């Protein structure tokens, strides 16, 4: 029984991290029609800020609060001073500019913290394992699973049940109309960017104790995030959740059944899904 419980639970935990990584990207595309290649760099910056704050403050709790907020500020600033000027351009322009931002942020991280990986200590309260008979699972991974689920719920409620969420959704469909109603659409977009940055930064901060931090983690996160968004469908919150869980489960199960092909199967699954449903599970054309 453990042989099945473990990979499923592990897959769900992985999937929730992937969801956190991808939902910001999906929000930006779905709500703002913006392809953000700097999303992986937000994840990277979030992880490194978590590392630095935890070293300075000696507290992971402080780090996991401050790091995503700082990345949110970064997202907001990037949109206010740069990206809002290009938001109406083609997706190619979005990709080019945000790819450049990604490179700059990557090199900044290496310049400040060096090229070698660093370790982020799991907080004492979350160290160790939970054990039920032969079944063991790390406490921190359970924490990630639970916290990610709560955040997913909160985000869903924000987008679907609040005025802000309604305005964001309306602006993505009819920006001019919303603007004519007296809403500052530019500010709305900035907040959307900040929210996307916050999600990515939080994903990075939560991943840091699991994997440490190293300069290449941003690119890898971006690849997974795009895979999740493609599976789930661009612009779909539910799609990002289902996509993340799908990829997490595929990876976890395959690492048990066919370890050497686990990583390959992620992208093979994405390819098969695209053939069957070109817009993803919940995407719109």
């Amino acid at each position, binding site marked *: 029984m*453990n*042989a099945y419980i*473990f*990979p499923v639970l*592990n897959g769900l935990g*992985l999937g929730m991290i992937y969801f956190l990584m991808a939902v910001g990207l999906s929000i930006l595309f779905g709500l703002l029609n913006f392809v953000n290649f700097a999303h992986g760099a937000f994840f990277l910056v979030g992880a490194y800020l978590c590392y630095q704050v935890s070293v300075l403050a000696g507290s992971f709790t402080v780090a996991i609060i401050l790091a995503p907020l700082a990345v949110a500020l970064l997202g907001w600033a990037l949109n206010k001073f740069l990206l809002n000027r290009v938001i109406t351009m083609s997706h190619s322009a979005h990709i080019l500019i945000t790819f450049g931002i990604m490179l700059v942020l990557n090199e900044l991280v*290496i310049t400040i913290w*060096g*090229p*070698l*990986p*660093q*370790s982020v*200590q*799991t907080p004492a309260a979350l160290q*160790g*394992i939970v*054990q039920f008979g032969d079944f*063991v*699972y*790390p406490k*921190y*991974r359970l924490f990630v699973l639970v916290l990610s689920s709560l955040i997913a719920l909160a985000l869903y409620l924000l987008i679907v049940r609040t005025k802000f969420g309604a305005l964001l959704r309306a602006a993505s469909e009819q920006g001019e109309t919303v603007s004519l109603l007296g809403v500052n659409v530019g500010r709305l977009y900035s907040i959307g960017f900040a929210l996307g940055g916050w999600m990515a930064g939080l994903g990075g901060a939560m991943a840091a104790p*699991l*994997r*440490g931090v*190293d*300069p*290449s*983690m941003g690119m*890898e996160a971006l690849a997974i995030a795009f895979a999740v968004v493609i599976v789930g469908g661009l612009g779909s919150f539910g799609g990002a959740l289902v996509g993340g869980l799908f990829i997490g489960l595929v*990876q*976890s*199960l*395959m*690492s*048990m059944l066919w*370890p*050497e*092909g*686990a*990583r*390959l199967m992620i992208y093979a699954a994405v390819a098969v899904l695209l053939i069957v449903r070109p817009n993803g599970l919940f995407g719109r054309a």
Partner: protein
Amino acid sequence: MKRRQVIQAIASALPIAGGIYSPGVIAQSKPKLAVRGPLSMSGPFASVGTLVHEGNVLGAEFFSRSLPVTMDYATIDDQSDPGKGVRKVVEAIEVDKVRFFSGTTNSASALAVGKEVYKAGGVYVNQAGADSVTGADCNKSTFRWPVATFGCVEQSVRPLIKMNPQAKRWYTITGQYVFGEALLANTKRVLAESGCEHVGNSYHSIAEREFSGYLASALAAKPDVLCILNFGNQTLEVIRAALSFGMSRNAIIIAPWSTGLDQFDALGADNMAGLYFGGLYWHDLKTPGNQQFLRLYAEKNKNKPPYAVASAYAAMQMIAEGIKKANSVDPAAVIKAMEGLEYEGLTGKERIRAGDHQVLRDFYLMKGKPKSAMRDAADYVDVVSSGQSFLPLEQTGCRMA
């Protein structure tokens, strides 16, 4: 500013713009010997390249003092691409007539560069890990400082078995590529010879970053030892995942191939206790060669030297010792002098085996200390075993022309 000054300023900046890193000028009175390091100063391997560059510069500066020539060292950036590295090396050979090369950041690059240097009749010393460098792909020009996987496993797995005779069940997690396969083959052999049971193996791709699934298989096998057969960041991530799953409660964890200090820094002092690592260098070695190196390193650095810097310094020493013995900078004469050469290296007395150009030197098994037992920030491990193990020449596959 006069026109000539402007032109000179631009000319001196061009090598830097072109990806060649030139350190400071050394003594002017002796003739210069061009030495180039094909390293990754950008791209995924840059973390290693910058350290190897530092070691090469340090070695060139120090060993030039006792040579009739000044080793005029510069790094060539291969941008983590063996193809680009080879092109730049060929350019250095054909245009700048360089015949001495030192260092590498990955085995694929080293093998490719070695072939070109051999064609030109030059000398190339590197720290590649692939067995074939002094095996099937050996050549007259290439020399290797690290040990092969045979020696790594013999001097890490075997001593661990002797220290823990009750630990019979071994589970391996292996990077699925040539290096990992070589480590696995040697590990299986040693386990069989020692009466231990290999209870399972999980392969993983070299791009893998998430290892929790592999650990599930390992946990299910209930091993006494978890043996991680890979190198670099992936080794760290397996260890982190293993610790998070509480594997250290019931199993010994060993990584036979590790790069030492930089990996221990990345893992963190809180995670080191009781872990075993095989290693090619540790800064605490009490050999005269290492003490000299530490003094030099301390002139410019506050921290302790990691393996990558030390190995680069060692590679430069080999070239310098060869030039000294040959009393010549003719590559053929230097190669002949290096074959069979014995000298006081970082690990003690080191000897270059003539038949395959492999340096015969110690390999170490290290055990992680509890954080409370550390004397300083870099005092992560104790060396619990050391020794030399090398395949007999006829078994290496090297047929040197």
